[in-house]
């Protein structure tokens, strides 16, 4: 079966002062059914822009190239009753579509229905003047042929599934009456209401406290497992990646620099940037106080991207070739790729 999401050579450029600047360059990634892919990188590396390009939520000033293949249920044969198990999802008649070229109307049908998103700040993504119940129902009414009454009872079910206590009361409350963790649960309820094939979560726990983050991560794990949903998890926290993901793609300056299974990338990191990131974070389980090894320098500005490898100016292993020639994403091992000239020699 085809991957749920197959992004091929996605590039995004923004027009700034009459000039197009590259925010995302040549990003390719796939997500299989039920899989969680982590997209990590520091601020400005293009991870959020990638997700917005996939869902076509970027403004018109952005120039998007490449292909985003999404295989979702064939609209012609969609079951009107929402299914709730992984086997039913795979049994649906699946059709592949290229999201960058489908009509706006079709894209609206896909968003919130087959692909849904959760953002970092739950307060800004919920509407402050509507009650929680009607915000979940809205999604259901928009995408499914059901009555408001049915939508209401399904919304209530969703609130129960995301572990909200007193769901009957919460249905009639406004976002400002809820805590940050509860709001994020409501966002997850809205996102999962139509049982999407793909959930994109952009820093879903960054604004939350650790103990609340633990609750939400646990919830997302359970939900993706029970519903068989694929998850694209965007984060800057390597701890969250280690905990949640099957595979991980590391982004730097608009490009994927390393990609592979979580185990491979954490224990056999090939790209100097990935290695640098791992060494830069304080080890929580370390007994001795080791000095941190920071990555010197700063991320290059997108207006002045280095010609060769974009990490070359900060790389401890920089060679002549790195400055002159831009490296491809080389296969290190099966499914493990690294955008570094050293990775080529390692293989040879």
């Amino acid at each position, binding site marked *: 079966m085809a991957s749920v999401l197959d992004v091929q050579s996605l590039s995004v450029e923004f027009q700034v002062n009459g000039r197009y600047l590259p925010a995302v360059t040549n990003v390719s990634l796939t997500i299989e059914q039920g899989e969680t892919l982590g997209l990590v990188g520091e601020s400005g590396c293009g991870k959020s822009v990638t997700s917005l390009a996939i869902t076509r939520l970027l403004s018109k000033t952005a120039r998007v190239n490449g292909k985003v293949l999404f295989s979702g249920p064939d609209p012609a044969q969609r079951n009107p009753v929402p299914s709730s198990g992984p086997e039913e999802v795979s049994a649906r008649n699946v059709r592949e579509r290229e999201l960058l070229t489908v009509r706006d109307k079709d894209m609206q049908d896909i968003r919130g229905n087959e692909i849904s998103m959760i953002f970092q700040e739950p307060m800004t993504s919920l509407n402050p003047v509507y009650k929680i119940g009607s915000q979940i129902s809205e999604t259901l009414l928009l995408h499914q042929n059901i009555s408001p009454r049915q939508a209401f009872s399904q919304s209530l079910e969703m609130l129960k599934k995301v572990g909200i206590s007193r769901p009957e009361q919460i249905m009639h409350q406004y976002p400002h009456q809820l805590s940050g963790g509860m709001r994020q649960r409501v966002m997850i309820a809205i996102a999962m209401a139509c049982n999407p094939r793909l959930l994109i979560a952009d820093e879903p726990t960054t604004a939350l*406290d*650790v103990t609340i983050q633990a609750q939400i991560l646990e919830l997302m794990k359970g939900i993706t497992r029970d519903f068989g949903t694929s998850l694209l998890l965007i984060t*800057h926290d390597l701890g969250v990646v280690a*905990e949640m993901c099957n595979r991980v793609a590391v982004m730097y300056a608009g490009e994927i620099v390393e990609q592979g299974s979580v185990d491979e990338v954490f224990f056999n990191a090939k790209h100097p940037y990935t290695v640098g990131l791992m060494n830069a974070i*304080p080890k*929580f389980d370390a007994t001795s106080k080791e000095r*941190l090894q920071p990555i010197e320098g700063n991320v290059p500005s997108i207006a002045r991207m280095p010609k060769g490898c974009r990490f070359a100016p900060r790389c401890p292993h920089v060679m002549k070739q790195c400055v002159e020639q831009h490296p491809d994403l080389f296969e290190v091992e099966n499914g493990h790729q690294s955008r570094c000239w050293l990775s080529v020699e390692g293989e040879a």
Partner: protein
Amino acid sequence: MASVLLEVEELKKYFPSGGGFLERSTGSVRAVDGISLKVYEGETLGIVGESGCGKSTLGRSILRLIEPTSGRVTFHGTDILKLRKSAMRDMRKEMQIVFQDPYASLNPRYTISQTLMEPMEIHQLYNHASRKQRVQSILERVGLDPSYASRFPHEFSGGQRQRIGIARALVLNPKLIILDEPVAALDVSVQSQVINLLEDLQADFGLTYIFVAHDLSVVKHISNRVLVMYLGKMAELASSDDLFFRPLHPYTRALLSAVPIPNPRVKRERIILSGDIPSPVNPPSGCVFHTRCPIAKDVCRQQVPEWRELRREHFVACHFAEDVDVETNSLPLGRR
């Protein structure tokens, strides 16, 4: 052991709450509710807790940037809460603060040189020429090119701005620096640069730090001792190693187990606390943590736990800290 530089006794800060324009306030938010601690010369005391636990208010109350409601803060033998405004201003030469947001804490219309000169002008230290020279040397010391002095904050990245914030705190040669989430707004690669810088400066200038943060890995890395706060109160205080490897308070334990560890092969038993942090306007009776505590019993609802030294230099406020200590490896999750 080194001498005590700062001693905080029964410090409280209550903010009025409720009410509104022309209305009486109806209650108070107990942001800091009876904190007592000592800070030793040359050490780094970490203060951790979740949002709203009062850790930042505590830091600011110590400097009297927020006027505490009651309590005592003794710095170098002087009770600074009794000082008058001008004497307090003099005292602040010795105690400086670095804020979280390097974007909001620098005046956008001042050049870096103006920002760094201002403290010396206020305190009338040095003449103009040596002030200038001092700016140059401090900039160099925090890893910035001295030629940047004539630039404005918007010309710098977040990490560079935080270096400027640190330089501003250093310029008066203080003894104590309160670091309020100094690396929270920075990316990982830059965060470690700033942490290393802070460690170097501490060694070179003999500084004492109070490091307020929510990121436990960072606090563990930088602190000698750590205080865990919950809802304005002290939950646990111990040396960094004791606290992280042998926690005695169920909240500390849950907090530690909640931190995602960047190692996919480590499988830990996670203690998931149910519910949210209660409102500090109306804190729970007895132990403030009992509403979320996995081992709470009746006594926890009724009696405020005593602050006691269960092991040497390891303080905790929990009725059942001994039980926690015994069951270091697993807490019964089902019990409430």
